[in-house]
Protein backbone atom coordinates (compact mmCIF):
# COMPACT_ATOMS: atom_id res chain seq x y z
CA UNK A 1 0.00 0.00 0.00
CA UNK A 2 2.71 2.42 1.03
CA UNK A 3 4.82 1.92 -2.04
CA UNK A 4 2.10 2.75 -4.53
CA UNK A 5 0.96 6.14 -3.33
CA UNK A 6 2.10 8.58 -5.99
CA UNK A 7 4.29 11.23 -4.45
CA UNK A 8 2.36 14.48 -4.20
CA UNK A 9 3.81 17.76 -3.08
CA UNK A 10 2.97 18.16 0.57
CA UNK A 11 3.14 21.19 2.81
CA UNK A 12 6.03 19.59 4.60
CA UNK A 13 7.93 19.42 1.32
CA UNK A 14 7.44 23.12 0.87
CA UNK A 15 8.77 23.71 4.34
CA UNK A 16 11.82 21.87 3.09
CA UNK A 17 12.55 24.71 0.69
CA UNK A 18 12.31 27.37 3.37
CA UNK A 19 16.08 27.82 3.70
CA UNK A 20 16.26 28.67 0.01
CA UNK A 21 13.22 30.89 0.30
CA UNK A 22 14.83 32.81 3.15
CA UNK A 23 17.93 33.39 1.11
CA UNK A 24 15.79 34.41 -1.82
CA UNK A 25 13.98 36.99 0.28
CA UNK A 26 17.19 38.43 1.65
CA UNK A 27 18.70 38.69 -1.82
CA UNK A 28 15.53 40.30 -3.14
CA UNK A 29 15.69 42.85 -0.37
CA UNK A 30 19.28 43.62 -1.24
CA UNK A 31 18.62 43.99 -4.96
CA UNK A 32 15.79 46.39 -4.21
CA UNK A 33 18.18 48.56 -2.26
CA UNK A 34 21.32 48.20 -4.35
CA UNK A 35 20.36 48.82 -7.96
CA UNK A 36 23.64 47.44 -9.23
CA UNK A 37 23.26 44.16 -7.43
CA UNK A 38 21.17 42.36 -10.02
CA UNK A 39 23.49 43.01 -12.92
CA UNK A 40 25.47 40.42 -14.80
CA UNK A 41 28.60 42.18 -13.71
CA UNK A 42 27.88 41.75 -10.04
CA UNK A 43 26.85 38.15 -10.61
CA UNK A 44 30.22 37.56 -12.21
CA UNK A 45 31.85 39.31 -9.27
CA UNK A 46 30.12 37.04 -6.78
CA UNK A 47 31.16 33.93 -8.64
CA UNK A 48 34.71 35.13 -9.21
CA UNK A 49 35.20 35.97 -5.55
CA UNK A 50 33.85 32.67 -4.36
CA UNK A 51 35.94 30.47 -6.64
CA UNK A 52 38.52 29.50 -3.98
CA UNK A 53 35.78 28.85 -1.43
CA UNK A 54 33.80 26.82 -3.95
CA UNK A 55 36.79 24.59 -4.55
CA UNK A 56 37.53 23.89 -0.90
CA UNK A 57 33.81 23.43 -0.22
CA UNK A 58 33.69 20.80 -2.92
CA UNK A 59 36.62 19.04 -1.28
CA UNK A 60 35.05 19.23 2.15
CA UNK A 61 31.75 17.94 0.78
CA UNK A 62 33.49 14.84 -0.55
CA UNK A 63 35.11 14.23 2.84
CA UNK A 64 31.81 14.70 4.68
CA UNK A 65 30.04 12.41 2.26
CA UNK A 66 32.58 9.68 2.95
CA UNK A 67 32.83 10.17 6.69
CA UNK A 68 29.33 11.17 7.70
CA UNK A 69 28.08 14.57 8.76
CA UNK A 70 28.53 14.32 12.50
CA UNK A 71 31.04 17.11 12.85
CA UNK A 72 32.75 15.71 15.92
CA UNK A 73 33.00 12.04 15.05
CA UNK A 74 32.25 11.97 11.34
CA UNK A 75 34.11 13.26 8.35
CA UNK A 76 35.53 16.74 8.28
CA UNK A 77 38.68 18.21 6.85
CA UNK A 78 39.65 21.55 8.30
CA UNK A 79 43.10 21.34 6.74
CA UNK A 80 42.00 22.02 3.16
CA UNK A 81 42.44 25.80 3.44
CA UNK A 82 45.92 25.23 4.84
CA UNK A 83 46.69 22.91 1.94
CA UNK A 84 45.49 25.61 -0.43
CA UNK A 85 47.75 28.16 1.18
CA UNK A 86 50.63 25.71 1.04
CA UNK A 87 50.03 25.14 -2.65
CA UNK A 88 49.98 28.90 -3.23
CA UNK A 89 53.03 29.45 -1.05
CA UNK A 90 55.19 26.83 -2.70
CA UNK A 91 54.20 27.95 -6.17
CA UNK A 92 54.79 31.63 -5.43
CA UNK A 93 58.11 30.97 -3.78
CA UNK A 94 59.36 28.80 -6.63
CA UNK A 95 58.08 31.17 -9.30
CA UNK A 96 59.97 34.08 -7.79
CA UNK A 97 63.16 32.05 -7.90
CA UNK A 98 62.56 31.68 -11.62
CA UNK A 99 61.37 28.10 -11.97
CA UNK A 100 58.85 27.14 -14.62
CA UNK A 101 55.21 27.01 -13.59
CA UNK A 102 54.83 23.34 -14.47
CA UNK A 103 57.61 22.38 -12.07
CA UNK A 104 56.09 24.55 -9.35
CA UNK A 105 52.75 22.88 -9.87
CA UNK A 106 54.25 19.41 -9.64
CA UNK A 107 56.05 20.20 -6.39
CA UNK A 108 52.97 21.89 -4.92
CA UNK A 109 50.82 18.95 -5.93
CA UNK A 110 53.23 16.52 -4.35
CA UNK A 111 53.23 18.51 -1.10
CA UNK A 112 49.43 18.68 -1.02
CA UNK A 113 49.07 14.99 -1.69
CA UNK A 114 51.48 14.29 1.16
CA UNK A 115 49.17 16.30 3.43
CA UNK A 116 46.13 14.40 2.16
CA UNK A 117 47.83 11.05 2.61
CA UNK A 118 48.98 11.98 6.11
CA UNK A 119 45.41 12.81 7.02
CA UNK A 120 44.27 9.56 5.49
CA UNK A 121 46.82 7.46 7.34
CA UNK A 122 46.29 9.16 10.70
CA UNK A 123 42.55 8.75 10.41
CA UNK A 124 42.10 5.35 8.83
CA UNK A 125 45.20 3.55 10.10
CA UNK A 126 45.80 5.09 13.50
CA UNK A 127 42.16 5.83 14.14
CA UNK A 128 42.28 9.51 15.03
CA UNK A 129 39.12 11.55 14.75
CA UNK A 130 39.08 13.69 11.59
CA UNK A 131 38.18 16.91 13.40
CA UNK A 132 41.22 16.66 15.59
CA UNK A 133 43.59 15.33 12.96
CA UNK A 134 42.80 17.93 10.39
CA UNK A 135 42.80 20.75 12.91
CA UNK A 136 46.28 19.78 14.03
CA UNK A 137 47.27 19.30 10.40
CA UNK A 138 46.00 22.79 9.68
CA UNK A 139 48.33 24.23 12.30
CA UNK A 140 51.26 22.18 11.08
CA UNK A 141 50.79 22.92 7.39
CA UNK A 142 50.36 26.64 7.98
CA UNK A 143 53.53 26.52 10.05
CA UNK A 144 55.42 24.78 7.27
CA UNK A 145 54.11 27.24 4.73
CA UNK A 146 55.31 30.11 6.90
CA UNK A 147 58.76 28.57 6.90
CA UNK A 148 58.68 28.29 3.12
CA UNK A 149 57.44 31.82 2.49
CA UNK A 150 59.08 33.34 5.59
CA UNK A 151 55.57 34.66 6.40
CA UNK A 152 55.77 37.29 3.77
CA UNK A 153 53.68 38.29 0.87
CA UNK A 154 54.96 37.20 -2.50
CA UNK A 155 53.67 38.90 -5.61
CA UNK A 156 52.99 36.70 -8.60
CA UNK A 157 52.42 37.98 -12.09
CA UNK A 158 52.92 34.83 -14.14
CA UNK A 159 50.75 35.14 -17.22
CA UNK A 160 48.99 31.82 -16.62
CA UNK A 161 48.06 32.77 -13.10
CA UNK A 162 46.88 36.17 -14.26
CA UNK A 163 44.83 34.42 -16.93
CA UNK A 164 42.89 32.59 -14.24
CA UNK A 165 41.72 35.99 -13.11
CA UNK A 166 41.60 38.06 -16.25
CA UNK A 167 41.27 35.81 -19.29
CA UNK A 168 37.83 35.44 -20.81
CA UNK A 169 36.57 32.71 -23.08
CA UNK A 170 33.42 33.57 -25.03
CA UNK A 171 32.80 36.41 -22.62
CA UNK A 172 32.97 34.20 -19.55
CA UNK A 173 36.01 34.40 -17.28
CA UNK A 174 38.26 31.41 -17.78
CA UNK A 175 38.54 30.91 -14.02
CA UNK A 176 34.82 30.40 -13.72
CA UNK A 177 34.78 27.94 -16.59
CA UNK A 178 37.65 26.00 -15.10
CA UNK A 179 36.10 25.74 -11.66
CA UNK A 180 32.77 24.83 -13.20
CA UNK A 181 34.51 22.04 -15.06
CA UNK A 182 36.28 20.81 -11.91
CA UNK A 183 33.07 20.93 -9.90
CA UNK A 184 31.23 19.12 -12.68
CA UNK A 185 33.83 16.36 -12.71
CA UNK A 186 33.68 16.04 -8.94
CA UNK A 187 29.90 16.09 -9.07
CA UNK A 188 29.89 13.34 -11.65
CA UNK A 189 32.32 11.28 -9.60
CA UNK A 190 30.48 11.76 -6.33
CA UNK A 191 26.90 11.52 -7.49
CA UNK A 192 26.90 9.62 -10.75
CA UNK A 193 29.42 6.82 -10.35
CA UNK A 194 29.56 3.68 -8.30
CA UNK A 195 32.55 5.11 -6.50
CA UNK A 196 30.49 8.12 -5.48
CA UNK A 197 27.53 6.08 -4.30
CA UNK A 198 29.85 3.87 -2.29
CA UNK A 199 31.42 6.97 -0.85
CA UNK A 200 28.03 8.24 0.22
CA UNK A 201 27.14 4.84 1.59
CA UNK A 202 30.28 4.84 3.70
CA UNK A 203 29.32 8.19 5.16
CA UNK A 204 25.64 7.38 5.52
CA UNK A 205 26.19 4.20 7.44
CA UNK A 206 29.61 2.72 7.77
CA UNK A 207 28.28 -0.64 8.90
CA UNK A 208 25.90 -0.86 6.00
CA UNK A 209 28.69 -0.06 3.59
CA UNK A 210 31.07 -2.61 5.01
CA UNK A 211 28.39 -5.29 5.08
CA UNK A 212 27.87 -4.59 1.38
CA UNK A 213 31.51 -5.29 0.73
CA UNK A 214 32.48 -1.64 0.46
CA UNK A 215 35.87 -0.81 1.87
CA UNK A 216 34.82 2.26 3.83
CA UNK A 217 38.29 3.00 5.16
CA UNK A 218 39.70 3.08 1.69
CA UNK A 219 37.02 5.49 0.53
CA UNK A 220 37.55 7.73 3.53
CA UNK A 221 41.25 7.75 2.77
CA UNK A 222 40.55 8.59 -0.86
CA UNK A 223 38.24 11.40 0.16
CA UNK A 224 41.05 13.09 2.07
CA UNK A 225 43.31 12.84 -0.94
CA UNK A 226 40.59 14.32 -3.14
CA UNK A 227 40.17 17.10 -0.60
CA UNK A 228 43.90 17.79 -0.64
CA UNK A 229 43.71 17.90 -4.41
CA UNK A 230 40.98 20.55 -4.31
CA UNK A 231 43.20 22.42 -1.88
CA UNK A 232 46.03 22.21 -4.40
CA UNK A 233 43.80 23.64 -7.15
CA UNK A 234 42.45 26.28 -4.80
CA UNK A 235 46.00 27.47 -4.21
CA UNK A 236 46.25 28.63 -7.82
CA UNK A 237 42.99 30.50 -7.58
CA UNK A 238 44.23 32.14 -4.41
CA UNK A 239 47.32 33.25 -6.30
CA UNK A 240 45.20 34.58 -9.11
CA UNK A 241 42.74 36.35 -6.87
CA UNK A 242 45.38 37.93 -4.67
CA UNK A 243 47.94 38.31 -7.43
CA UNK A 244 50.30 36.54 -5.12
CA UNK A 245 50.41 34.63 -1.88
CA UNK A 246 49.57 36.45 1.34
CA UNK A 247 49.97 35.04 4.81
CA UNK A 248 46.83 34.58 6.86
CA UNK A 249 44.34 33.80 4.10
CA UNK A 250 43.60 30.36 5.56
CA UNK A 251 41.63 31.45 8.64
CA UNK A 252 38.87 33.20 6.82
CA UNK A 253 38.81 30.55 4.15
CA UNK A 254 38.28 27.88 6.78
CA UNK A 255 35.36 29.67 8.41
CA UNK A 256 33.70 30.33 5.06
CA UNK A 257 34.25 26.76 3.94
CA UNK A 258 32.69 25.24 7.04
CA UNK A 259 29.83 27.71 7.02
CA UNK A 260 28.98 27.19 3.36
CA UNK A 261 29.30 23.41 3.33
CA UNK A 262 27.13 22.75 6.36
CA UNK A 263 24.68 25.42 5.38
CA UNK A 264 24.51 23.63 2.04
CA UNK A 265 23.00 20.62 3.80
CA UNK A 266 19.99 22.76 4.62
CA UNK A 267 19.34 23.15 0.88
CA UNK A 268 19.39 19.47 0.10
CA UNK A 269 16.01 17.73 0.21
CA UNK A 270 17.62 14.82 2.03
CA UNK A 271 19.22 17.26 4.48
CA UNK A 272 22.66 15.85 3.97
CA UNK A 273 25.86 17.45 2.82
CA UNK A 274 26.05 17.24 -0.95
CA UNK A 275 28.45 18.61 -3.46
CA UNK A 276 26.00 20.91 -5.16
CA UNK A 277 24.63 22.00 -1.79
CA UNK A 278 28.10 23.02 -0.68
CA UNK A 279 28.75 24.89 -3.90
CA UNK A 280 25.39 26.62 -3.72
CA UNK A 281 26.09 27.44 -0.09
CA UNK A 282 29.41 29.03 -1.02
CA UNK A 283 27.81 31.11 -3.76
CA UNK A 284 24.90 32.22 -1.60
CA UNK A 285 27.11 33.18 1.32
CA UNK A 286 29.27 35.20 -1.06
CA UNK A 287 26.19 36.81 -2.58
CA UNK A 288 24.88 37.76 0.83
CA UNK A 289 28.21 39.18 2.03
CA UNK A 290 28.69 41.17 -1.14
CA UNK A 291 25.06 42.21 -1.11
CA UNK A 292 25.19 43.59 2.38
CA UNK A 293 28.39 45.43 1.62
CA UNK A 294 26.78 46.90 -1.49
CA UNK A 295 23.85 48.34 0.40
CA UNK A 296 26.30 49.86 2.83
CA UNK A 297 25.37 47.88 5.91
CA UNK A 298 27.77 48.90 8.64
CA UNK A 299 30.71 46.55 8.37
CA UNK A 300 30.66 45.83 12.06
CA UNK A 301 27.28 44.18 11.60
CA UNK A 302 28.15 41.63 8.94
CA UNK A 303 29.13 38.93 11.44
CA UNK A 304 25.90 39.39 13.30
CA UNK A 305 23.90 39.08 10.11
CA UNK A 306 25.83 36.01 8.98
CA UNK A 307 25.41 34.33 12.34
CA UNK A 308 21.72 35.09 12.50
CA UNK A 309 21.26 33.75 9.00
CA UNK A 310 22.79 30.43 9.98
CA UNK A 311 20.51 30.29 12.97
CA UNK A 312 17.38 31.08 10.98
CA UNK A 313 18.17 28.79 8.09
CA UNK A 314 19.31 25.87 10.20
CA UNK A 315 16.45 26.25 12.67
CA UNK A 316 13.95 26.21 9.81
CA UNK A 317 15.69 23.25 8.33
CA UNK A 318 15.42 21.43 11.65
CA UNK A 319 11.76 22.42 11.80
CA UNK A 320 11.15 21.00 8.36
CA UNK A 321 12.88 17.81 9.39
CA UNK A 322 10.68 17.46 12.43
CA UNK A 323 7.55 18.18 10.43
CA UNK A 324 8.08 15.09 8.33
Amino acid sequence: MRGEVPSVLKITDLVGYLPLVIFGLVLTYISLHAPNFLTLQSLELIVMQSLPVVLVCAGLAVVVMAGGDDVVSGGIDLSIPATAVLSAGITAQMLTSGMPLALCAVVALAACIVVGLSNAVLITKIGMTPLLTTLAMFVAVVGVNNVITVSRRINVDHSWIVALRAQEIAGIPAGILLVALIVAILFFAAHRTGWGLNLQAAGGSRDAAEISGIDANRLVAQSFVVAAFTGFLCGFFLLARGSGSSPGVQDNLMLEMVLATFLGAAFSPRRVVTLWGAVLGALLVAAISIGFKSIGVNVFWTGLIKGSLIVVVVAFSALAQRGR
Partner: protein
Amino acid sequence: MTTRANTLRDVLLRFGFLIVFAAFFVLFAFWNPVFLQGGNLLNIVEGSAILMIMALGLTLIVATGGIDLSIGIALDFGAAFAVVAMSTYGLDWFSAACAGVIGGSLVGIFNAILVVGLRISPFLATLSTFFIGSSVQRIFTNGGGPISYRRMPTEFRNIAQGDILGVPTEAVIAAVLVVIYYLLLERSIWGRRIHAMGMQRPAAIVAGIRVNRILFGCFVFAAMTCAVGGLIAAANIRMFTPLSGFSYLLDAIAAVFIGAALHPRGRPNVLGTVAGVLFLGMVANGLNLMGLNFNTKDALQGIILVSALAFAVAQRRARGS
Protein backbone atom coordinates in the same frame (compact mmCIF):
# COMPACT_ATOMS: atom_id res chain seq x y z
CA MET B 1 63.74 -11.25 17.03
CA THR B 2 60.28 -10.45 15.90
CA THR B 3 59.10 -10.80 19.46
CA ARG B 4 61.61 -8.27 20.64
CA ALA B 5 60.53 -5.90 17.91
CA ASN B 6 56.98 -6.57 18.95
CA THR B 7 57.62 -5.85 22.59
CA LEU B 8 59.42 -2.65 21.72
CA ARG B 9 56.52 -1.60 19.56
CA ASP B 10 54.20 -2.63 22.34
CA VAL B 11 56.00 -0.56 24.91
CA LEU B 12 56.14 2.40 22.58
CA LEU B 13 52.45 2.19 21.92
CA ARG B 14 51.44 1.47 25.46
CA PHE B 15 53.25 4.40 26.97
CA GLY B 16 53.47 6.41 23.80
CA PHE B 17 52.23 9.70 25.02
CA LEU B 18 54.09 9.53 28.31
CA ILE B 19 57.27 8.78 26.39
CA VAL B 20 56.67 11.67 24.02
CA PHE B 21 56.01 13.97 26.95
CA ALA B 22 59.14 12.87 28.77
CA ALA B 23 61.27 12.93 25.64
CA PHE B 24 60.37 16.52 24.93
CA PHE B 25 60.93 17.46 28.53
CA VAL B 26 64.42 16.02 28.47
CA LEU B 27 65.15 17.50 25.05
CA PHE B 28 64.14 20.98 26.13
CA ALA B 29 66.07 20.68 29.37
CA PHE B 30 69.24 19.69 27.53
CA TRP B 31 68.86 22.32 24.88
CA ASN B 32 68.49 25.20 27.26
CA PRO B 33 69.12 24.74 30.99
CA VAL B 34 66.86 27.71 31.63
CA PHE B 35 63.95 25.41 30.82
CA LEU B 36 64.36 23.53 34.09
CA GLN B 37 64.65 26.59 36.31
CA GLY B 38 61.86 27.02 38.81
CA GLY B 39 60.97 30.41 37.42
CA ASN B 40 60.53 29.03 33.95
CA LEU B 41 58.47 26.04 35.04
CA LEU B 42 56.32 28.49 36.93
CA ASN B 43 56.04 30.48 33.71
CA ILE B 44 54.70 27.41 31.96
CA VAL B 45 52.09 26.81 34.64
CA GLU B 46 51.13 30.44 34.85
CA GLY B 47 51.13 30.90 31.11
CA SER B 48 48.85 27.89 30.73
CA ALA B 49 46.29 29.10 33.24
CA ILE B 50 43.91 30.75 30.79
CA LEU B 51 44.16 27.91 28.30
CA MET B 52 43.57 25.45 31.13
CA ILE B 53 40.38 27.25 32.12
CA MET B 54 39.12 27.44 28.55
CA ALA B 55 39.93 23.79 27.96
CA LEU B 56 38.03 22.80 31.11
CA GLY B 57 34.92 24.55 29.84
CA LEU B 58 35.33 22.88 26.49
CA THR B 59 35.83 19.47 28.12
CA LEU B 60 32.42 19.81 29.70
CA ILE B 61 30.75 20.59 26.38
CA VAL B 62 32.56 17.83 24.54
CA ALA B 63 31.51 15.43 27.29
CA THR B 64 27.87 16.24 26.53
CA GLY B 65 28.56 15.08 23.00
CA GLY B 66 28.82 18.56 21.50
CA ILE B 67 31.44 21.13 20.69
CA ASP B 68 31.74 24.81 21.50
CA LEU B 69 33.40 27.09 18.99
CA SER B 70 32.36 30.14 20.98
CA ILE B 71 34.44 29.69 24.13
CA GLY B 72 36.56 32.61 22.98
CA ILE B 73 33.49 34.83 22.84
CA ALA B 74 32.70 33.92 26.44
CA LEU B 75 36.23 34.93 27.39
CA ASP B 76 35.85 38.22 25.55
CA PHE B 77 32.53 38.94 27.21
CA GLY B 78 33.93 38.11 30.62
CA ALA B 79 36.78 40.53 30.12
CA ALA B 80 34.61 43.22 28.54
CA PHE B 81 31.93 43.20 31.21
CA ALA B 82 34.47 43.33 34.00
CA VAL B 83 36.53 46.14 32.49
CA VAL B 84 33.50 48.21 31.54
CA ALA B 85 31.97 47.66 34.98
CA MET B 86 35.05 49.16 36.55
CA SER B 87 35.96 51.84 34.05
CA THR B 88 32.53 53.11 33.06
CA TYR B 89 30.39 52.25 36.06
CA GLY B 90 33.03 52.48 38.72
CA LEU B 91 32.08 49.20 40.35
CA ASP B 92 34.40 47.67 42.94
CA TRP B 93 36.61 44.81 41.85
CA PHE B 94 34.40 42.03 43.19
CA SER B 95 31.22 43.31 41.58
CA ALA B 96 33.18 43.77 38.38
CA ALA B 97 34.37 40.16 38.51
CA CYS B 98 30.78 39.05 39.05
CA ALA B 99 29.69 41.22 36.14
CA GLY B 100 32.30 39.52 33.98
CA VAL B 101 31.08 36.07 34.88
CA ILE B 102 27.50 37.15 34.24
CA GLY B 103 28.57 38.58 30.90
CA GLY B 104 30.09 35.23 30.00
CA SER B 105 26.97 33.42 31.07
CA LEU B 106 25.00 35.42 28.50
CA VAL B 107 27.02 33.71 25.81
CA GLY B 108 26.27 30.35 27.39
CA ILE B 109 22.59 31.12 27.62
CA PHE B 110 22.53 32.16 23.98
CA ASN B 111 24.23 28.91 22.95
CA ALA B 112 21.87 26.93 25.12
CA ILE B 113 18.84 28.56 23.53
CA LEU B 114 20.12 27.68 20.08
CA VAL B 115 21.08 24.14 20.96
CA VAL B 116 18.35 23.18 23.40
CA GLY B 117 15.54 25.46 22.29
CA LEU B 118 16.00 25.54 18.53
CA ARG B 119 17.75 22.15 18.31
CA ILE B 120 20.55 23.45 16.15
CA SER B 121 23.61 21.22 16.18
CA PRO B 122 26.20 22.53 18.65
CA PHE B 123 28.75 22.99 15.90
CA LEU B 124 26.59 25.29 13.80
CA ALA B 125 24.98 26.93 16.82
CA THR B 126 28.26 27.89 18.42
CA LEU B 127 29.66 28.90 15.05
CA SER B 128 26.74 31.34 14.79
CA THR B 129 27.43 32.52 18.30
CA PHE B 130 31.01 33.09 17.29
CA PHE B 131 29.97 35.24 14.32
CA ILE B 132 27.34 37.11 16.29
CA GLY B 133 29.50 37.54 19.39
CA SER B 134 32.40 38.87 17.33
CA SER B 135 30.12 41.27 15.58
CA VAL B 136 28.61 42.50 18.84
CA GLN B 137 32.07 43.24 20.17
CA ARG B 138 32.98 45.20 17.10
CA ILE B 139 29.76 47.19 17.25
CA PHE B 140 30.28 47.88 20.91
CA THR B 141 33.90 48.93 20.56
CA ASN B 142 33.33 50.79 17.32
CA GLY B 143 35.34 48.35 15.28
CA GLY B 144 37.28 46.32 17.79
CA GLY B 145 39.49 48.75 19.62
CA PRO B 146 40.73 47.65 23.02
CA ILE B 147 39.27 49.20 26.15
CA SER B 148 42.14 49.87 28.43
CA TYR B 149 41.81 50.65 32.10
CA ARG B 150 45.25 51.20 33.49
CA ARG B 151 44.02 52.37 36.87
CA MET B 152 41.99 49.29 37.74
CA PRO B 153 41.85 48.36 41.43
CA THR B 154 44.84 46.41 42.68
CA GLU B 155 42.57 43.63 43.92
CA PHE B 156 41.37 43.05 40.40
CA ARG B 157 44.87 43.14 39.00
CA ASN B 158 45.83 40.61 41.61
CA ILE B 159 43.53 38.07 39.97
CA ALA B 160 46.33 37.68 37.49
CA GLN B 161 49.34 39.25 39.12
CA GLY B 162 49.08 38.45 42.77
CA ASP B 163 50.13 35.27 44.39
CA ILE B 164 48.78 33.06 47.12
CA LEU B 165 51.53 31.56 49.27
CA GLY B 166 53.98 32.15 46.46
CA VAL B 167 51.85 30.52 43.79
CA PRO B 168 50.53 32.88 41.11
CA THR B 169 46.84 33.59 41.70
CA GLU B 170 45.84 32.66 38.17
CA ALA B 171 47.46 29.26 38.61
CA VAL B 172 45.59 28.86 41.88
CA ILE B 173 42.32 29.78 40.19
CA ALA B 174 43.01 27.30 37.41
CA ALA B 175 43.88 24.60 39.94
CA VAL B 176 40.71 25.22 41.92
CA LEU B 177 38.68 24.98 38.72
CA VAL B 178 40.46 21.76 37.82
CA VAL B 179 39.40 20.30 41.15
CA ILE B 180 35.84 21.54 40.75
CA TYR B 181 35.63 20.17 37.24
CA TYR B 182 37.18 16.89 38.28
CA LEU B 183 34.64 16.43 41.04
CA LEU B 184 31.82 17.58 38.79
CA LEU B 185 32.62 15.55 35.73
CA GLU B 186 34.34 12.45 37.06
CA ARG B 187 32.95 11.99 40.53
CA SER B 188 29.53 13.54 40.84
CA ILE B 189 26.14 12.28 39.88
CA TRP B 190 25.79 15.12 37.41
CA GLY B 191 29.00 14.04 35.75
CA ARG B 192 27.60 10.53 35.41
CA ARG B 193 24.52 11.98 33.79
CA ILE B 194 26.55 14.23 31.51
CA HIS B 195 28.64 11.31 30.33
CA ALA B 196 25.57 9.14 29.83
CA MET B 197 24.02 11.84 27.74
CA GLY B 198 27.19 12.45 25.77
CA MET B 199 27.60 8.80 24.95
CA GLN B 200 24.02 7.90 24.13
CA ARG B 201 21.46 10.60 24.35
CA PRO B 202 18.25 8.60 23.70
CA ALA B 203 19.13 6.13 26.41
CA ALA B 204 19.81 8.96 28.84
CA ILE B 205 16.42 10.46 28.10
CA VAL B 206 14.64 7.17 28.72
CA ALA B 207 16.58 6.76 31.95
CA GLY B 208 14.85 9.89 33.18
CA ILE B 209 17.80 12.22 32.86
CA ARG B 210 16.80 15.81 32.19
CA VAL B 211 19.06 16.11 29.20
CA ASN B 212 17.82 19.53 28.17
CA ARG B 213 18.34 20.96 31.59
CA ILE B 214 21.80 19.42 31.83
CA LEU B 215 22.75 20.64 28.39
CA PHE B 216 21.55 24.10 29.25
CA GLY B 217 23.47 24.05 32.50
CA CYS B 218 26.62 22.79 30.84
CA PHE B 219 26.63 25.51 28.20
CA VAL B 220 26.09 28.19 30.80
CA PHE B 221 28.61 26.79 33.25
CA ALA B 222 31.24 26.31 30.57
CA ALA B 223 30.75 29.88 29.36
CA MET B 224 31.01 31.20 32.91
CA THR B 225 34.22 29.28 33.33
CA CYS B 226 35.64 30.79 30.19
CA ALA B 227 34.58 34.21 31.45
CA VAL B 228 36.83 33.60 34.45
CA GLY B 229 39.58 33.15 31.90
CA GLY B 230 38.49 36.53 30.58
CA LEU B 231 38.89 38.09 34.01
CA ILE B 232 42.45 36.84 34.17
CA ALA B 233 43.15 38.07 30.65
CA ALA B 234 41.78 41.50 31.51
CA ALA B 235 43.72 41.67 34.75
CA ASN B 236 46.89 40.50 33.07
CA ILE B 237 47.15 43.39 30.68
CA ARG B 238 44.74 45.79 32.35
CA MET B 239 42.49 46.03 29.35
CA PHE B 240 39.90 44.29 27.29
CA THR B 241 41.14 43.25 23.85
CA PRO B 242 38.15 42.44 21.64
CA LEU B 243 38.16 39.17 19.69
CA SER B 244 41.16 37.91 21.61
CA GLY B 245 39.48 34.77 22.92
CA PHE B 246 39.52 33.09 19.54
CA SER B 247 43.25 32.52 19.80
CA TYR B 248 42.65 29.94 22.55
CA LEU B 249 40.12 27.86 20.60
CA LEU B 250 42.40 25.65 18.57
CA ASP B 251 44.69 24.91 21.50
CA ALA B 252 41.72 24.17 23.74
CA ILE B 253 40.27 21.74 21.22
CA ALA B 254 43.66 20.08 20.85
CA ALA B 255 44.05 19.77 24.64
CA VAL B 256 40.59 18.28 25.13
CA PHE B 257 41.07 15.73 22.39
CA ILE B 258 44.57 14.79 23.50
CA GLY B 259 42.96 14.17 26.87
CA ALA B 260 40.19 12.10 25.34
CA ALA B 261 42.72 10.08 23.41
CA LEU B 262 44.50 9.27 26.67
CA HIS B 263 41.29 7.93 28.21
CA PRO B 264 40.82 4.16 27.95
CA ARG B 265 37.35 4.61 26.46
CA GLY B 266 38.20 7.71 24.48
CA ARG B 267 36.09 10.00 26.64
CA PRO B 268 36.87 13.64 27.24
CA ASN B 269 38.05 13.87 30.82
CA VAL B 270 39.47 16.45 33.17
CA LEU B 271 42.82 14.85 33.97
CA GLY B 272 43.46 14.16 30.30
CA THR B 273 42.70 17.77 29.49
CA VAL B 274 45.15 18.89 32.16
CA ALA B 275 47.81 16.67 30.60
CA GLY B 276 46.99 18.08 27.18
CA VAL B 277 47.22 21.68 28.33
CA LEU B 278 50.50 21.14 30.13
CA PHE B 279 51.92 19.39 27.11
CA LEU B 280 51.00 22.26 24.83
CA GLY B 281 52.34 24.77 27.31
CA MET B 282 55.58 22.89 27.70
CA VAL B 283 56.12 22.60 23.96
CA ALA B 284 55.40 26.28 23.33
CA ASN B 285 57.73 27.36 26.10
CA GLY B 286 60.44 24.88 25.24
CA LEU B 287 60.46 25.88 21.59
CA ASN B 288 60.61 29.55 22.57
CA LEU B 289 63.70 28.80 24.59
CA MET B 290 65.35 26.83 21.81
CA GLY B 291 66.15 30.02 19.98
CA LEU B 292 64.60 28.97 16.70
CA ASN B 293 63.41 31.33 14.04
CA PHE B 294 59.75 31.97 14.74
CA ASN B 295 58.53 30.48 11.49
CA THR B 296 60.43 27.28 12.15
CA LYS B 297 59.09 27.26 15.67
CA ASP B 298 55.47 27.49 14.55
CA ALA B 299 55.94 24.73 12.02
CA LEU B 300 57.61 22.48 14.61
CA GLN B 301 54.85 23.18 17.08
CA GLY B 302 52.25 22.04 14.55
CA ILE B 303 54.17 18.94 13.62
CA ILE B 304 54.69 18.04 17.27
CA LEU B 305 50.97 18.48 17.87
CA VAL B 306 50.08 16.07 15.07
CA SER B 307 52.60 13.47 16.20
CA ALA B 308 51.66 13.70 19.86
CA LEU B 309 48.02 13.19 18.99
CA ALA B 310 48.85 10.24 16.80
CA PHE B 311 50.81 8.68 19.65
CA ALA B 312 48.04 9.31 22.15
CA VAL B 313 45.44 7.65 19.93
CA ALA B 314 47.67 4.76 18.95
CA GLN B 315 48.31 4.21 22.62
CA ARG B 316 44.63 3.98 23.46
CA ARG B 317 44.07 1.51 20.69
CA ALA B 318 47.00 -0.61 21.76
CA ARG B 319 45.58 -0.74 25.25
CA GLY B 320 42.10 -1.45 24.02
CA SER B 321 43.07 -4.57 22.12
